[in-house]
């Protein structure tokens, strides 16, 4: 029996155990996809409740306090628990294959990152059942979050802290992978754009998450251990929290949008059959956006009272970001210009993304004009703006990415017909929901309002917006149906299913072998696989002879480490109420975590080798999972 054969044929329990212990980037990608998708649905349900409540004036579908919990959890869930992990799913699934690597640099850390994110997200959402969710908005501004009663904010602080560790680890892991594990010939300037955007986004994670971690620590000590960083009565300062949050929060926006840009930068060339126009300026623009992203955080605080000098500087700096973003938009248009466009579902999403995102981008520039922003800020105009960039940019990218990379991740193809129905519903609903909100804001409707009084001219706009939301929900339901149907039918589509794949990930057999590349490929230029295909070859030229492949062993330790922190968080939170069991639980939880880490450090785990003979056997049968 070869090692390869052993990995096949498991019962249900075996499969579960495999996923609980896996360190394979492709399986971790699926875990991220499932968990992120699950949280996306929860966030979506919260969104629907918001729109139902605001459909008519003076509505009492939810109470005032509950509404604040819903908007807080909607924002927090969508950003931290849906958008980030779903992008991480694609980064995990695609990036190592794109650079010709057998896995990420630290497979164990990769699994640890996922489980930390998962337990953090789980902890945050358990707040619904344990006395109420956080209710100070996803920004959790200090004076309100310190005044908030109950444990809602504690759930926010601890949950985000745990899942934030996971994200930080993931980011570092991707950085190291891209720097060290590129296949022979894969120079930086031959890397596909999705890899580039993953690289820049990971660098942003590296620098943006520590301020959040610090801010959350301070908040945690203020709320749970009696410190006064943000308590004015004790000499603290609440504005510091705003700075911490936005020094993290603004780059976070780019952490999300850059990989989305990356996905579209892969889709456009594929379905226009034309190489990306201005590749080097696209790379330059990506890096520049990442860099400028750290220079503009205070534009979220124009009305905080920073004074005209700071406001003017941040206004002009913010406007500057429009330039590299514009470069990208024009390069995409010029990519399809002169191409041969095939309207597959991913391409339809990509095409619809351009006008949608441009509309979100230009309102961003409008808000950069500080005096105008004094009017826009914290009104529904802002709500419209950031949903235009997040839904019109990131969510469209996620849907496009699901369709585009589904064959790579699962070996099957989502239905194009149902995909188009989803697109039509979702796209119509999206514009219907959010376009009118620009005007609601301009007409004087503040954001985060639980209800609005009649007679202020806000009724029609809100009703239209709510109807649009229903369309979006219908689109998502059909998408889910599509996923289930596709997986039930399970029609395997084989290698390079879109026929026009350009990059390395399409050059490997489908389903992808668990070791990815039998022999590391030789990369001879940008769009490595496309170059080979133009020369009539169907496979990459290998850069090495067939040899033994070193693989990591599965491990249950990442799960245990994360579980320990999850347990400890309950202890930290309830010791505020002087519960006798709380401190012991905190200690036990930390003990589990540190114990698992110690176990990992002491135990030698050298992994295993797949032998050359098995690989040669395997080659005849096609790939295995």
């Amino acid at each position, binding site marked *: 029996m070869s090692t390869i054969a052993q990995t096949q044929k498991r019962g249900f329990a075996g499969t579960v155990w495999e996923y609980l212990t896996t360190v394979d980037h492709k399986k971790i990608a699926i875990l991220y996809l499932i968990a992120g998708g699950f949280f996306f649905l929860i966030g979506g349900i919260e969104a629907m409740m918001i729109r139902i409540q605001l459909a008519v004036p003076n509505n009492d579908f939810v109470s*005032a306090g509950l509404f*604040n919990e819903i908007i807080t959890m909607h924002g927090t869930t969508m950003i931290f628990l849906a958008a980030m992990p779903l992008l991480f799913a694609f980064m995990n699934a695609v990036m190592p294959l794109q650079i010709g690597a057998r896995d990420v640099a630290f497979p164990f850390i990769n699994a640890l990152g996922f489980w930390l994110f998962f337990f953090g997200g789980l902890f945050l959402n358990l707040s619904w059942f344990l006395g109420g969710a956080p*209710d100070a*908005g996803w920004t959790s*501004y200090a*004076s*309100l979050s310190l*005044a908030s009663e109950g444990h809602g904010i504690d759930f926010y602080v601890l949950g985000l802290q745990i899942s934030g560790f996971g994200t930080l680890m993931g980011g570092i892991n991707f950085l190291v992978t891209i720097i060290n594990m590129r296949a022979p010939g894969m120079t930086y300037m031959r890397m596909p754009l999705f890899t580039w955007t993953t690289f820049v986004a990971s660098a942003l994670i590296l620098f943006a998450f520590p301020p959040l971690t610090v801010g959350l620590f301070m908040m945690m000590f203020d709320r749970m251990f009696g410190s006064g960083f943000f308590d004015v009565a004790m000499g603290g*300062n609440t*504005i510091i929290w705003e700075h911490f949050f936005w020094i993290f929060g603004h780059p976070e926006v780019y952490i999300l949008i850059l990989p989305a840009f990356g996905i579209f930068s892969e889709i456009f060339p594929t379905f*226009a*059959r034309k190489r990306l*126009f*201005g*590749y080097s*300026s696209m790379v330059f623009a990506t890096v520049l956006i990442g860099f400028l992203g750290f220079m503009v955080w205070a534009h979220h605080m124009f*009305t*905080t*009272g920073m*004074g*005209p000098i700071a*406001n*003017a500087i941040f*206004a*002009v700096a913010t*406007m500057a970001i429009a*330039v590299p973003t514009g*470069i990208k938009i*024009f*390069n995409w*248009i010029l990519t*399809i210009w002169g*191409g041969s*466009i095939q309207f597959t579902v991913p391409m339809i999403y990509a*095409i619809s993304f*351009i*006008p949608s995102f*441009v509309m979100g981008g*230009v309102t961003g*520039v409008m808000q950069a*004009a*500080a*005096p*105008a922003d*004094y*009017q*826009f*800020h*914290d*009104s529904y105009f802002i709500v419209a703006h950031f949903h235009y960039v997040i839904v019109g940019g990131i969510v469209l990218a996620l849907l496009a990415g699901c369709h585009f990379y589904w064959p790579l991740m699962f070996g099957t193809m989502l239905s194009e017909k149902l995909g188009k129905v989803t697109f039509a519903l979702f796209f119509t609903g999206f514009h219907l929901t959010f376009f009118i909100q620009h*005007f609601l804001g*301009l*007409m*004087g409707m*503040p954001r*985060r*309002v*639980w*209800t609005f009084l009649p007679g202020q*001219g806000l009724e029609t706009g809100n009703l239209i917006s709510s109807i649009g939301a229903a369309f979006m929900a219908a689109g998502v339901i059909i998408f889910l149906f599509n996923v289930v149907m596709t997986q039930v039918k399970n029609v395997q589509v084989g290698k390079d299913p879109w026929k026009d794949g350009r990059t390395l990930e399409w050059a490997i057999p489908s389903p992808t072998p668990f070791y990815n590349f039998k022999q590391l490929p030789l990369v001879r230029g940008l769009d490595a696989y496309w170059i080979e295909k133009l020369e009539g070859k169907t496979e990459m030229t290998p850069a090495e002879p067939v040899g033994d492949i070193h693989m990591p062993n599965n491990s249950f330790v990442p799960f245990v480490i994360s579980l320990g922190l999850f347990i400890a968080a309950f202890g930290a939170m309830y010791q505020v109420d002087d519960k006798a069991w709380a401190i012991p639980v905190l200690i036990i939880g930390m003990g589990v975590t540190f114990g698992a880490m110690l176990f990992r450090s002491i135990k030698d785990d050298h992994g295993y080798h797949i032998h050359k003979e098995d690989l040669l056997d395997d080659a005849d049968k096609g790939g295995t999972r």
Partner: protein
Amino acid sequence: MKQKLTKWRLLTVFGLLTLVLSGCGEPFLSTLIPAGEAGQIAYDLMILSTVIMVGVVIVVSIMFAVAVIKFRRKKGDESIPKQVEGSHVLEIVWTVIPILLLIILAIPTVIATFDLADTKAMDKKNEDGTTDALVVNVRASLYWWEFEYPNEGIITSQDLVVPTDQKVYFSVKASDVKHSFWIPAAGGKIDTNVDNINKIWLEFDNEKAAEAGNIFYGKCAELCGPSHALMDFKVKAIPQDEFDQWVTAMQSVEESTPTDPEAAAGQEIFNQKCLSCHAVTAADERPEQARLAPNLTNFGDRELVAGILEHNEEEVKNWLADPEKYKPGNKMTGTYGELSDQELDQLAAYLMGLKVEQ
């Protein structure tokens, strides 16, 4: 000739946009119908940026639509299009043009930022510590607003009264959690921080005020708790002479027993249960920490009860019977015990009688 044509087109776009936008919203609330100089500055910048950006969207959309329509793959077309690497000229073009557009936007932005932040008039103190400029100290508390006129020595709440056709200077802060002071029709918002005092100025045009019925809506624009959505206030913008009369009337209010026996009984109850937080004279000498609730000196003149309910005795009674029902999370609930129906009647009669206007 051609240039002239484009200019005309631009003007048309401007005109149309103004027309379309001014159709939006109510004059007492909408940012698109600015009621004074500060609002106008923001509005002009909004229009300028909108015009530039609509232009950008149109250009991009046309290029994009042409590309998508023209380069569709024909059925059975298996040809490989020419692989173009890029174009330096184009890259420079679409880098430089946006930069120019942004400069056009950036210059008025910076000018307006400094204009709107110019509150020097507040610091020019006369010998007795007053200022020539009209100053209002705004204090935001969980779901109500206090307006103190330091020069005039009066305090009111919920209904801000200002004279038209002059700059009014505000110095704002919060007493519990962060709020944000926003009168959309009059101009941009400013956060009321717990840490420091922020300053802005606004101006209310006499004619614009008349069009809006002399009443503007004010809002809290920063999430502050369950009743954030209900933390409204009203702005009564009246001509200078009427404002002076109002100030005099407010200054001369003294505590007196109402003639109506029902109201007098109400005052009795009020003094027992409410006076420790609320005040009924405009010259409230207590420090602000002790002013725990809205000043009610001119309660009978106000537009709405608690900023949200219709202004009549019935709603006053509803509010007093169960404030929690109307403003969840407010600080008044449960501070004064149950009130009987009779007590409610008496209190409402007393409160509605608190007037300074004839």
